[in-house]
């Protein structure tokens, strides 16, 4: 920090001031260091310094068997562990040309949608906290607690759940699973209204988010931004509709779309996504088909040599797995397409011309998790 401070001359001086945000900073959602080139208060450019949380997941994958690598996948985007697990399991099932049984598919969909709500709740709480609203964080954590209880009852873990197995599920849904999910969904409708009352109409919230961090549709696609960031810029595209996986083709739900791609639209899109996920869960628990929960997958997996790429709609964006197998029990190469890493790239284009306080809001609206950025 000292060397940067020395560069700046006087507060009156014309040349830029390099302000250092992070890596230990209350609002960078983890170990992210952003070097802001400031002209007075205006941001002229940003440079992200990442890698503090790099654990070399892809190198580890090459020395583990397919089943052994599954728990590592949860540690990447630790806020949405279940969807990481779903992506990996479905990718390996595609590699093995095996299909999970319908009952497993439906339970997987319910769990993933619950995880999407939990991930959006964490985003909403921390994003509001960065912009100064202290209360939403605790409301969101209170709801998320309900979801984590359901996960704990199902697979024993709350955060890094490792809930799914290649080929289907390990555990049968515990007997009051449907009742818990239904109770949560019924109650969640009223809870979302609480957040809407607190934030949506609030003029200070609108003042802080309207026209902040604008990203046009072309920029989104060019920069590869995906998920709520892409939809808020007006692109009506969701992988769950475009290339349905698990049991998403059996349920009808809308895709929320924003208009001018600013922080406020991303907020509205994610709030609407939470409502849609709730509807999916309600439709799903009506008829969970009976039947086996694990497909015909042997103890030792030896997928024939070849490669596949499979991607799902994770809460943060497109989460893709490119797996190359050389016929042995260990994958030859596992490449994970991290949505947060690629969305973070858009920070520089969004932050230019804004004030320092806006950079904090923009990092919040990108909803990045450093475990996934650094892998």
């Amino acid at each position, binding site marked *: 920090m000292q060397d940067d401070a020395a560069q700046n*001359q*006087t*507060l*009156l001086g014309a040349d830029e001031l390099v302000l250092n945000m992070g890596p230990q900073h209350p609002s960078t959602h983890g170990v992210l260091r952003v070097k802001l080139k400031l002209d007075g208060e205006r941001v002229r450019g940003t440079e992200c310094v990442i890698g503090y949380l790099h654990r070399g997941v892809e190198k580890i994958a090459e020395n583990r068997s397919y089943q052994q690598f599954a728990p590592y996948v949860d540690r990447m985007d630790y806020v949405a562990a279940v969807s990481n697990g779903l992506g990996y399991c479905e990718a390996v099932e595609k590699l093995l040309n095996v299909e999970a049984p319908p009952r497993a598919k439906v339970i997987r969909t319910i769990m993933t949608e619950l995880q999407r709500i939990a991930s959006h709740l964490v985003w909403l709480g921390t994003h509001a906290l960065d912009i100064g609203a202290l209360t939403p964080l605790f409301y969101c954590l209170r709801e998320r607690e309900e979801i984590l209880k359901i996960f704990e009852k199902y697979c024993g873990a709350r955060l890094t759940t490792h809930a799914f197995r290649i080929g289907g599920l390990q555990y049968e849904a515990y007997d009051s699973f449907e009742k818990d999910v239904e109770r949560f969904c019924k109650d969640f409708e009223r809870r979302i209204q609480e957040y809407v009352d607190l934030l949506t109409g609030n003029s200070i919230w609108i003042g802080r988010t309207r026209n902040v961090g604008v990203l046009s549709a072309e920029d989104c696609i060019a920069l590869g931004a995906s998920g709520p960031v892409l939809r808020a810029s007006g692109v009506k595209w969701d992988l769950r509709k475009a290339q349905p996986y698990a049991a998403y083709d059996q349920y009808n739900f809308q895709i929320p779309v924003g208009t001018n791609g600013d922080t406020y639209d991303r907020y509205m899109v994610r709030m609407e996504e939470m409502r849609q996920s709730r509807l999916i869960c309600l439709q799903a628990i009506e008829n969970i088909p009976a039947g086996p929960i694990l497909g015909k997958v042997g103890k030792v997996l030896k997928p024939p040599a070849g490669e596949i790429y499979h991607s799902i709609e994770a809460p943060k964006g497109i989460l893709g797995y490119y797996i190359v197998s050389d016929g042995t029990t260990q994958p030859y190469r596992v490449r994970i397409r991290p949505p947060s890493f690629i969305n973070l790239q858009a920070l520089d284009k969004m932050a230019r011309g804004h004030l320092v306080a806006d950079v904090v809001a923009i990092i919040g609206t990108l909803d990045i998790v450093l475990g996934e950025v650094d892998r």
Partner: protein
Amino acid sequence: MLDKVIFFFFAGVAILSAGLMVTRRNAIHSAVFLITTLLATAGIFLQLRAEFIFIAQIILYVGGIMVLFVFVIMLVRLDVALHQIQFSRQKWVALLVTLALAAEVGVMLWSSRNVPGQGFLLPNAVPAGKLPPNTEALAGRLFDAYLLPFEIASVLLLVAMVGAVVMAKKRT
């Protein structure tokens, strides 16, 4: 008895911090000492039953002008100017001149000390009880006898404000 104690306390503080203000190398220190001087003189105004001037001094001088000074000192990074020499060469000449002036006024004050009526043929001070309530009297006088100077002062302030804004604006 109480008056004497109060006066000597405030006068002592005022002179001491004024002296310190002039001799400090660091501008912020001299600003702080100037603030103490102004507060001490405000105390003396209070002792002279001039409440409105006391509060005007605190709000305008200390709360307004000195905040401006401290603001500018912070903006104008002073570590550049600090290690340049602070005192000009003709320091001794200045001291000589002021000492001569001081001696002259001192002698004049001292020699008139034992003339009746404090030497200035002044009436004795009006007893405190009969003084009109300060703010009302001041307001009354300000807005009828001195209305024109009041308007001129407001114009002066306006001119000063506009001048300062134009002066300090960044040449964009």
